[in-house]
């Protein structure tokens, strides 16, 4: 974690001849020494560019759009044709370009990963802070709620909600099938993980001197939580969120694999892998390329998370 003023890094301010460094500078100094994490960060940045500029990228590569069907690119048995210059990753059963769909699939993966994690983290932080700060019956109630939610198998929840909301949506139409539904399920299922960590940190932090000082100066509860405690939670939250992103990307892929995730014709890696499995023996490319994209993305986020953890918590030992 990154303690603020009055915290464990005060020693950095000491020592007459030594130039002081901000926590961010310290973090960056450590982080840049982790080459694996740097490469991962670069790969994720590349993915973000690909996702944001997918139409431009596909156009520059001379590929057809992700849902352009061309059955002439299948043989007389309906089997898709393999990689070629025109279609470097081959095509699928509908003659759609696999590379184009992998590129557009990046959008879905990152949207689910980043947006879903962001919302779940925000909810988790809010609930965790309330539980840890106020303790008593509020803590008891919120903690039991976390226990209940954590006991729900997330995949079964996703399957159930996905099936129930498949056609017309649910919660009076507020949750529509597709991306919104997946993010909804991710938020429901993963906020307690964040909340539990935050609660534990807040429980110890609320007894620290800088909090007591703030309280003695007449600061309100809200101010203490938002201005004193929350900044000190930044490091663990960033690390945990970074590790949650690949989990959620895999979760989306799993739901799409099981046909309750992203609706076709929107491209999703999990959906592509599901479609590829029955024809793997005759169309290996259809599974290999989206599978590789999923593998590399998840790996990159995990390695980045490890690197962030090392850089933000130098005393931790892996």
């Amino acid at each position, binding site marked *: 974690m990154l303690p603020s003023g009055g915290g464990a890094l005060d020693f950095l301010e000491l020592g007459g001849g030594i130039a002081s460094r901000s926590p961010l500078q310290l973090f960056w100094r450590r982080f840049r020494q982790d080459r694996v994490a740097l490469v991962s960060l670069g790969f994720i940045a590349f993915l973000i560019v690909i996702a944001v500029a997918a139409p431009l990228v596909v156009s520059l590569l001379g590929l057809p759009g992700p849902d352009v069907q061309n059955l002439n690119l299948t043989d007389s*048995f309906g089997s898709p044709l393999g990689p070629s210059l025109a279609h470097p990753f081959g095509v699928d059963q509908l003659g759609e370009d696999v590379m184009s769909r992998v590129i557009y699939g990046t959008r879905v993966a990152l949207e689910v990963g980043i947006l879903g994690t962001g919302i779940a983290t925000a909810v988790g932080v809010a609930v965790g802070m309330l539980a840890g700060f106020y303790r008593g019956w509020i803590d008891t109630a919120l903690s039991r709620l976390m226990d209940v939610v954590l006991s729900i198998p997330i995949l079964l929840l996703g399957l159930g909600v996905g099936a129930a909301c498949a*056609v017309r949506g649910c919660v009076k139409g507020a949750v529509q099938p597709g991306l919104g539904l997946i993010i909804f399920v991710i938020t429901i299922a993963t906020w307690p993980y964040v909340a539990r960590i935050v609660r534990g940190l807040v429980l110890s932090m609320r007894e620290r001197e800088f909090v007591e000082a703030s309280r003695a100066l007449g600061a309100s509860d809200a101010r203490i939580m938002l201005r004193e405690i929350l900044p000190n939670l930044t490091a663990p939250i960033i690390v945990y969120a970074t590790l949650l992103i690949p989990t959620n990307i895999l979760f989306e892929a799993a739901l799409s694999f099981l*046909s309750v995730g992203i609706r076709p014709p929107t491209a999703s890696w999990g959906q592509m892998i599901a479609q590829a499995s029955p024809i*793997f023996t005759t169309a290996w490319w259809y599974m290999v390329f989206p599978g590789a994209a999923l593998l590399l993305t998840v790996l990159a986020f995990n390695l980045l998370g490890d690197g962030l953890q090392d850089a933000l918590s130098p005393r931790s030992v892996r």
Partner: protein
Amino acid sequence: MRSIRMLVATALAAVLALALGACGSSSSGSTTVPGSASVLSTGGYQSPLTTSLTDGKRGGTLQVLDETDFEHLDPGIAYYSLDYTVVFATQRPLYSNKPDAVEPTPDMAAAAPEISADNKTVTVHLKEGIHFSPPVNREVTSHDVAYAIERGANPNVANPYLSTYFSSLEGIKQANGGAIKGIETPNKHAIVFHLTEPKGQFVADALVLPLTAAVPKEYAEKFDTNNPSDYANYQVATGPYMLKNNAEGKVLGIGYSPGKSATLVRNPNWNASTDFRPAYLNEIDIKIGGTQAVIDRQVLEGGNVVENEPPAQSAIKLAAENYKSQIDISPGGGSHYIAVNNKVGPFSSIDLRKALWAALDRKAMDRVRGGELVTNVATHFIYPTINGFNEAGGVAGPKVDYNEHPEGDIALAEKYIRLAGYPSGKYTGEKPIEVVASSGAPAKEDAEIVNQTLKNLGFKTKLTLVEQSTMYAKYCGVPKEEIDVCPNVNWIADFSDPQTVLNITFSGNSIVSSGNNNWGQVNVPTINAAMTAAESVNGKAARGAAWAKIDEELVRDAAAVPFDWDKQPRLEGSAVHGVAQLWNEGAWDYSFTSLK
């Protein structure tokens, strides 16, 4: 009533169709099959129409690999193709189909049914010398056939098609498992069916269904008092094979272990002189479970082994390229079409329905299903092997412009959209239409082609993929859900009569609030009236002609958009001389199959 994966049984009447021979029917070993060379041909691959039924080697054990378990093995309940593979090897209905035939052959019956002049009485005489398997052992009588049908009305048995095909049987409405007034057994080898309506031909046709397989009342009655009946677990056989049992007749855990295996052995009481089945094999061992892709490889690389479910698309290609002698293609495997909501929404407009039909690339739809090897482009609803196919237009179908370009004709589609009141030639309605489809391959791919076609026509769409059973049970089969398009519904006739193809699926009188099979809610008064009249038409040719006219009216109304007449593939091991059933989606016939 029938639905997906269900049996294709053949029609009964003994008189050969007078009109079919002339226009493109195909003669198989024993009968004439409605169709033409182009739709019945399987491109040189073996098929039920070309495989020899005789000269098999006697003896040996056939291994069968089934991915899924049976639904029901009780002849009074069984209704699915996989169930029929066992039921028709162990039971003998009054009439049955040879593997290459759509004309029935007397089985338990001694001859063709006698239909009275007023078409209200059907009389069937039974063969003598047919015995039940142990532990019953005694000779079969007409009382056993009567009980078999009566127990179908027992709520503990609840036969799925009794009320559909035997609705004209006198007293059927009051039947609950006891005697039915309309069934008479004047002596122990004759049974008479008395009808309230002149539907003798149709009832006679339905006697090929396994409900008419004899069941010994004194033995089965105690099992039928249980809810549900567990007669299947103690069943006795009349066919050449029986499910292996113990001295008390118990089958469960001995000849059939749910989810695991089934074993068929020879019926010691079977009298070959009374049966047309050669029954070459000594034993059939069925293993249940596994995954289709693995099973496909095991069969292609195996010896005395077959699989009884359609192989994966990649396995079909592999077999066609490298194991050509081990694939069997059976025409007449049902049809697929797009159900569009005729009642509400944009497709209540006939012109928009015609536009979709015109625009759809039916060849592409069939290509994703495996191409010409396993499909034919559909041009109407009565499919090959069903009586009336040729009269309904044969391969070309009714001559309407939107039916002429199977690869799709966008310009023509736009003409119809303009006729529907959209001057730009594109649909401009704002509300997205709901498209609900089955999620499995290749249904999903078909759904995506339909979805793209709709978008090309200007529709905003909301495509949802669900499990096939969910698609039918919760959406496409529930009128109040008001689904606009169900892109891949499938229908397989119970026997080769056109009424079984068109009536439940397109008659307004068949619409029900749940479990509805008239998915498009087609309800055209003139067509309904024509169907009601055609139900009472007797004579094979006359029925074919009457229902063919209805088929043409449905095409002219663009009530739905047909795109595929299925041909069903099956795989066999290198040591198997497999004989597939034309009438049962190409499933292997254990009573004719042999080892090389």
